[in-house]
């Protein structure tokens, strides 16, 4: 092993935010070095400095022992530094293959593109990753998880010596994560140095050699992954010990039914789905990528039409044809794709938190009660520990995890009777996760009916009073809370009545 990268005393400020305070970091060949820290700790910023997106205000960067300056992403590439950005940055109107090779298209004479080679090369990368995707698929139609796969494929295509992965697994489920780890191990063996960022604590142990922790933009320390217990890393991150409670399943036999979904179908995506949800219940939805959980949630929420079936809210059959009607009926839906479906990125934190509840905070002529909204926003910023210079900060300037918290705050403020959370903790740090679990439990205890869709099985297990499992658009079973992981996986792969490997 030899030293690939060394960052010394890196400093970076944004208006109102001192994002990096003299941070040190180094990377050896053939190692996986995890970068940990709470939301807004500065991880992404540090990596953007290394990959030529931001220029640091101070400090120096050495690659192979040579001091370098990295003014552009191109310069980073030339130094062999590749990155998977946390915020997916794909060109939605281009195909998967076109996205992957942007800027490095195989060419024929006269600037012509070698589209055949482009697609073949892409197919080869996908084969190496063990995923099935037509290289000619337009990116616009892909789910967040599939987009994440494309980003990973793109990063791999660079054959970089230094590969930065900023929360590559935030949208992936266990099977896909396992696949990614296989790839990472292969790269490691080839001598590639990998910087790995994730909020999924179990992954850290599984994949990393060393762990560097940041807090509030400052370097806290670097430890060897193997000999350091997770709890130690967490306390380095948050500056205190965290205690996690196990799920307690309440007795809901007497509780009123809040939501009934009866034989709901749509095209190939949803096939005769029926289930019911009681007040005070948390129903978890498990399944593999593309199982149709998001589709189901959107159908219930009226974001997408249904072909047949019925939805009853508090016993009354309702025809919900738009999200506005759903919200009026007391249903809220937090999308898995915060950037496209959750946030007005150019608007401030306060406006985003208030987005679904403006009607409650205005007078008869539509004048907004800003003072009340400011109070509410500050309240949620504190409650969810949203790291932001203030409630007037544009959401786009927040770190990914903090953006996610803003979306959560929006739905908490709206105070719906039935809440559907699709991947609510995507990109959220451990401490905040625990806080959100606590909040969800509180909401349930207060009589809300809650659906949680999550690709993280531990999360589903940790939260759910019952667990619904989907596969290929069908609801393959509902298990009691605390069910066996094996049983869930069995249902998640149960195609057309038969169980696949």
């Amino acid at each position, binding site marked *: 092993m030899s030293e690939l990268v060394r960052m010394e005393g890196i400093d970076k400020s944004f208006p109102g935010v001192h994002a990096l305070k003299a941070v040190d970091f180094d990377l050896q060949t053939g190692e996986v070095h995890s970068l940990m820290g709470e939301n807004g700790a500065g991880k992404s910023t540090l990596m953007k400095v290394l990959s030529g997106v931001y220029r640091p205000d101070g400090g120096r960067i050495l690659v192979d022992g040579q001091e370098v300056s990295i003014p552009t992403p191109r310069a980073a590439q030339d130094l062999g530094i590749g990155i998977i950005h946390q915020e997916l940055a794909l060109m939605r109107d281009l195909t998967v293959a076109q996205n992957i090779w942007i800027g490095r298209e195989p060419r024929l004479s006269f600037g012509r593109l070698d589209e055949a080679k482009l697609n073949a090369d892409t197919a080869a990368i996908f084969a190496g990753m063990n995923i099935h995707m037509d290289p000619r698929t337009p990116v616009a139609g892909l789910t967040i998880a599939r987009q994440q796969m494309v980003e990973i494929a793109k990063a791999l295509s660079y054959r970089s010596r230094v590969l930065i992965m900023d929360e590559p697994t935030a949208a992936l489920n266990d099977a896909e994560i396992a696949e990614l780890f296989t790839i990472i191990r292969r790269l490691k063996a080839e001598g590639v140095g990998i910087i790995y960022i994730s909020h999924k604590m179990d992954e850290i142990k599984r994949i990393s050699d060393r762990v560097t922790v940041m807090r509030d933009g400052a370097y806290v320390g670097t430890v060897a992954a193997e000999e350091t217990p997770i709890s130690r890393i967490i306390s380095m991150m948050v500056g205190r010990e965290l205690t996690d409670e196990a799920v307690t399943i309440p007795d809901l036999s007497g509780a009123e039914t809040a939501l009934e979904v009866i034989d709901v179908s749509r095209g190939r995506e949803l096939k005769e789905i029926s289930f019911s949800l009681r007040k005070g219940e948390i129903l978890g939805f498990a399944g593999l990528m593309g199982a149709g959980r998001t589709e189901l949630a959107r159908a219930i929420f009226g974001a997408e039409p249904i072909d047949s079936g019925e939805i009853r809210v508090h016993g009354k059959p309702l025809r919900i044809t738009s999200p506005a009607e759903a919200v009026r009926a007391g249903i809220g839906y937090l999308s898995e794709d915060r950037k496209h479906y959750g946030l007005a990125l150019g608007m401030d934190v306060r406006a985003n938190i208030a*987005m679904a509840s403006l009607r409650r905070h205005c007078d008869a002529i539509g*004048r907004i009660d800003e003072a009340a909204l400011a109070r509410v926003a500050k309240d949620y910023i504190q409650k969810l520990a949203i790291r932001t210079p203030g409630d007037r900060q544009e959401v786009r300037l927040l770190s990914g995890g903090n953006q996610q918290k803003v979306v959560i705050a929006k739905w908490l403020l709206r105070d719906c009777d039935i809440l559907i959370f699709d991947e609510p903790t995507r990109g959220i740090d451990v401490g905040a996760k625990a806080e959100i679990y606590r909040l969800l439990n509180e909401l349930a205890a207060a009589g809300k009916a809650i659906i949680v869709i999550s690709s993280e099985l531990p999360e589903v297990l940790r939260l759910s009073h019952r667990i619904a499992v989907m596969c290929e658009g069908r609801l393959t079973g509902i298990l009691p809370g605390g069910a066996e992981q094996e049983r869930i996986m069995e249902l998640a792969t149960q195609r057309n009545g038969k169980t696949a490997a």
Partner: protein
Amino acid sequence: MSEKASLRGSAQQKILAFASLIVLLIGFSLASPNFFQVSNIMAILQATSVNGVLAVGVTMIIITGGIDLSIGTLMTFCAVMTGVVLTWAGMPLPFGVLAAIGTGAFCGFVSGGLVARMKIPPFIATLGMMLVLKGLSLIVTGTKPIYFNDTPGFTLIAQGSLIGQFVPAFPVPNGVLVLFIVAGVTSWILSRTVLGRYTFALGSNEEAVRLSGVNTNFWKIAIYTLSGAICGIGGLLIASRLNSAQPALGLGYELEAIAAVVIGGTSLAGGRGTILGTLIGALIMSVLTNGLRVLSVAPEWQTVVTGAIIIIAVYADQMRRREAK
């Protein structure tokens, strides 16, 4: 502290936005003694009033990420309907005012419906409306102007000066007063009300707003309707200025108004913009036009210089903004 800093930054920006305008004013004043005189300043303001009102209206639509190409011919159609009500039907003045605003609101409502419900791209929907309204104005009038000679006081709407009655030294024409009132109210709506909030939100991320349970179609239509009503006010002003409804007028006004909006810093991509900026943009354009004329620059050179200065002004503004960060 940082919050304060960012507020300070934005206040700074607002003042800086004036800079190009001020530079122009000073430049022209030095170049010609005839420029900075009450009567000429009033002429500039008067020349801004119609374009300014249209620009204020279309600012809202542009903030939603839309565009409205029909504002010019809609303005004319509103003026024509005022003529129909006042001159042809002989009704009293207030009905004429209502006719202009009502026609504007109705046509805005139609455009809004085409965009929101029928999902026709705003460019096409309003291009279609632009042509339809252009034709309708000619058809209704029989291609002849309608004069307002029988409605005493009609020309006062734009040309009189309420302020001048109290402050004779500043005979600000009523048209300008109307512009400032419209701008003030619109600015208030944009910054203080639910309608304004959704205007920005729609331009920022329409799908996210829809998924927040907001009836986006309703609000979009409301915004186009309001903008149409403002166009109607523009129609009233131009009719009053010309003491007539000129049915062939209108084409080209949309570009001028949109230019004022964009010069004023509102992004055509939607999601951001200010009425103050639009006002400044409109003023920059009329100061330029007037100033070059007062300097007796040859007309062909006027266009060249106007083009160049627009680019420079926007560039300078952007530099300043970047520095302010």
